[in-house]
């Protein structure tokens, strides 16, 4: 991701604004630059979003939508779809030219049909300018050829969730910050009967998050900047070797895990360390009054970011959602006005808070949202947008990056090697071959 002079100025302004405090944000000095979108006569909107995982997210989103309707008279119908159905639904709408006016899509979905989306560069630049700039990772999912084809709405963070007392029992006063220390901790955790467990199965979120972290933290990448497959490398080999060592310390069965298994096992006290969204901690916290065992677990849970590997910085996939407007909408101004309203400080801060740490801001100006300091365990999720990398790193996003991840090329590469079904070299070559298919060699 290249920085332009304008980005630097904006980022600096954002950091300064953050330091001064949020009173500066939204001040009249900024507000006068705001684009004005007058909704079309008789406009109504339909938004299709993913089913919420945290009730507060939906409650807040709907309350803000109602505020928009009260202020403008534009009715907005909000529909929900399951996680997996978002991609095909959005693609069909784009192809057919009919469907919801707006959608909240995942990852690089917007890059599958960029010419079917309304250009929202004016809005993207205005919001970025007003709220301290966009984080690079989420922005990468919404900007194509210098134009905003959508607005990065949130990063759904993935972090280490662990049992503090067991980590201490294993002889570690604090959670290791680097991959070498992490491996030692996992060995120690296994010895005391409270092992770690990370998904090697086809878990859309957890499986991909873990596999991408393994690769990137060791300096590997699926493709280079030009989109040429670069998975067959010494860095990837190091990542696989590390994964094999780590796997030996895991609880049995992680090859079959889908997205729910690790939460379930962790909350049953079977595991000492997992990587997950904040939902695992929230489940324990919400139910602690009805279940003494969960109350004990909730008290013992700590969260932290995934360890830093040889690359020397936090690099993770997380999960990103982008708000897009289809260009077939008869009410483009109303749709833009709606997004503008939802991204403005009052609504956005309210929504981030309502999401209880599940949704991380994509604009730097909202980094001081009280939710991140309200509970120390939320802090690890506050940096999701900062540490995330687009799934097609280091190449361009598009069909190939989407298909490579959807086909679990990376997940399978690690799974084959750690389970001994292939040598590290064979697993790497197989991944290279499969990726080459998508990147059309």
């Amino acid at each position, binding site marked *: 991701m290249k920085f332009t002079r304008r980005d630097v100025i904006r980022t600096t302004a954002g950091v300064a604004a953050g330091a001064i405090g949020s009173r500066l944000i939204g001040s009249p000095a900024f507000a006068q630059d705001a684009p004005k979108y007058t909704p079309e006569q008789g406009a109504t909107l339909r938004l299709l979003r993913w089913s919420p995982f945290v009730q507060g997210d939906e409650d807040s989103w709907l309350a803000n939508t109602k505020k928009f309707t009260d202020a403008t008279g534009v009715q907005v119908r909000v529909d929900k779809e399951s996680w*997996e159905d978002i*991609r*095909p639904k959005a*693609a069909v709408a*784009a*192809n057919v030219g009919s469907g919801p006016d707006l959608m909240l899509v995942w990852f690089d979905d917007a890059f*599958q*049909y960029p010419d*079917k989306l309304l250009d929202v560069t004016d809005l993207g630049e205005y919001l970025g300018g007003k709220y301290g700039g966009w984080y690079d990772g989420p922005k990468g999912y919404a900007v194509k050829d210098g134009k905003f084809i959508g607005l990065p709405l949130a990063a759904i963070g993935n972090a280490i969730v662990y049992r503090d007392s067991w980590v201490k029992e294993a002889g570690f006063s604090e959670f290791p910050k680097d991959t070498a220390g992490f491996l030692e901790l996992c060995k120690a955790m296994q010895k005391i009967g409270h092992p770690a467990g990370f998904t*090697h*199965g*086809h878990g859309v979120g957890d499986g991909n998050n873990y596999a991408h972290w393994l690769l990137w933290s060791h300096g590997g990448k699926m493709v280079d900047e030009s989109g040429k497959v670069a998975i067959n490398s010494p860095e990837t080999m190091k990542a696989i070797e590390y994964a094999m060592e780590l796997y030996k310390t895991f*609880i*049995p*069965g*992680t*090859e*079959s*895990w*889908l997205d729910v*298994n690790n939460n*379930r*096992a962790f909350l*049953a006290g*079977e595991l000492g360390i997992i990587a997950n969204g904040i939902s695992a901690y929230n489940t324990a916290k919400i139910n602690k009054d009805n279940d003494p065992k969960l109350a004990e677990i909730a008290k013992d849970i700590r969260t932290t970011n995934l360890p830093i590997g040889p690359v020397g910085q936090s690099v993770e996939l997380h999960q990103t959602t982008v708000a897009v407007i289809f260009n077939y909408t008869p009410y483009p101004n109303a749709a833009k006005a709606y997004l503008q309203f939802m991204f403005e400080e009052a609504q956005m801060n309210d929504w981030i808070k309502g999401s209880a740490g599940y949704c991380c801001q994509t604009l730097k100006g909202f980094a001081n949202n009280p939710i991140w300091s309200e509970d120390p365990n939320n802090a690890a999720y506050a940096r999701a947008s900062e540490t995330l990398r687009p799934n097609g790193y280091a190449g361009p996003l598009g*069909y190939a990056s*989407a*298909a490579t991840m*959807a*086909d*679990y090329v990376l997940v*399978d590469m690690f*799974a*084959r090697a750690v*389970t001994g*079904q292939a040598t590290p070299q064979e697993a790497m070559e*197989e991944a290279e071959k*499969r990726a080459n*298919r*998508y990147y059309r060699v």
Partner: protein
Amino acid sequence: MTAQRSSFRSRLSESRGFLSFGFMLPAAALLLVFLTYPLGLGVWLGFTDARIGRPGIFIGLENYEYLWDDSVFWLSVFNTLLYTISASILKFVLGLWLALILNENLPFKTFFRAAVLLPWVVPTVLSAIAFWWIYDSQFSIISWALMELGLIDSRINFLGDPTNARASVIAANVWRGIPFVAITLLAGLQTIPQSLYEAATLDGASRWQLFRYVTLPLLTPIIAITMTFSVLFTFTDFQLIYVLTRGGPVNATHLMATLSFQRGISGGLLGEGAAIAVAMIPFLLAAILFSYFGLQRRRWQQGGGD
């Protein structure tokens, strides 16, 4: 001219062929719209590089050439054949055995017949979720029971080990599919006249001979139909695998149907997904021809040898 036209009309309305054709039109139109068109579109898409969000261009056999060289595709073919053959044989043997038992004069016969249908009546996704718990690597009730009985020391890795995972999904499919086979064969058994059994008994036939020379030959047409459908359902199974393993561990349980979905819908490569689906057709045809005609052999039906 008018008289000529009206006489042509009246002749047309009295023509049996024309009327039959007219009556068939609605059904033909439905078949055309809901069967022929999607099938044709699927075959066409298999020859294109269509992607979600973009209509494809004709690329000939490129998708098939890639699949020919794709180890995951061949693994899915192997898995599909193993899954279909193993599950179908087990469903047939157990279903027939159950049908023969239910055909006897048992106490509470009606209750048992209704109970047998339960696994088939429960929606697939629900039974798949139940199996997901039963096979869970941490919470499996089977592992728990065997450990409590002291028969095993550690939990069974049902879905994490490739061999175990294949056996587990086959077992789940068999559990779901037995009722269909059993009830259909039971219906067939009840059409066999009792007088044939009486006559054979008078001739001194043993129970095995009654089964071999009376029951089986008269049941073969029903077996052929039942197994044809059973093989079809098993070969194209999707829900069970999708819920239980999503094709894992390391693609060890991917069937052609689930791989087609993963590549075509989740991955957005509609052309390749369609090619995998089209590649199922020859296997399906072979399976149907085998189970239908193979079991319909006249000599076998007439009690002769092969």
